[in-house]
């Protein structure tokens, strides 16, 4: 395995940990409806991310998009107003 592949896997593991930490902080009073027929509690979301299934990958993508938005200050400007 090349050095860069190993590095990517490590980064992916770090991202997974970060997203799981964020989901763990969710209130247990809420449920997510996202595609398909299922609804997801906090614990089910974490399981999806750990298993890297389709939904888990989508949650990671959504969370990373959000963190990027926050880092770039998007939604704090007035582009829609």
């Amino acid at each position, binding site marked *: 395995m090349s050095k860069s592949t190993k590095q990517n896997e490590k980064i992916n593991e770090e991202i997974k940990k970060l997203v799981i930490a964020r989901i763990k*902080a*969710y*209130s247990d*009073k*809420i*449920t*997510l*409806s*996202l*595609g*398909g*027929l299922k*609804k997801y509690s906090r614990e089910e979301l974490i399981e999806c991310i750990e298993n890297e299934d389709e939904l888990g990958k*989508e949650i990671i993508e*959504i*969370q990373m*998009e*959000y963190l990027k*938005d926050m880092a770039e200050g998007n*939604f*704090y400007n007035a582009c*829609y*107003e």
Partner: protein
Amino acid sequence: MRVMNRVLLVTRPNHDCTTNYLYYWADWVIQEARKKHFKVLDLKQEKANRRLFISYLSKNSPKLIFLNGHGSSDTLAGHNNESLINVGDSFLSNKIVYARSCCTASRLGVKCVDSGAQVYIGYKKNFAFFYTTSKITRPLEDDLAKLFLEPSNLVPISLMKGNTAGMSYKKSQKAMYRNIRYMLSSNASVEERNAIPYLIRNLRCQTLIGDPNARL
């Protein structure tokens, strides 16, 4: 002088938690339609099936079609996930379609417009919303779900006011943006802050395909 087509066709299955929320929130649009003297063709629950859908389309010629339910890139479903519209169907010719459903704007919507629909507004990826677990039997009292579903209702409501598809799409986008700004503020609850990334996703994947100048 052009005369507005005042017929609205709504499909709103109700067979699981997600469709239950969409079912009740679609009722708000129906009430608005009745206030504006629209004839409402309400294909609810078991009536949200392909046979009735095609029959109502041909007999009543509604211009505005408001679809709620599960979806994928190739199909949009009705009650118990019976498929209502598939890639290749051409019965939406000349219609203004709004689909509150997952993924249909990525391919199905494009194909509908290719087959003659005037405009198709939908979501390219999964449509997401959070709800409060304790409000599951009273979806309209759920303030968390409201942050997601109220802006999504604005597309058909704005169209019924005579606005163009482009203006209606923009109103919905603006409302999502406003809600995101509120959810980022210190006035928001923990639950509301948890939900921000998913509303941003809805904002980004809501799409208009076809003629933005289309109107009823």
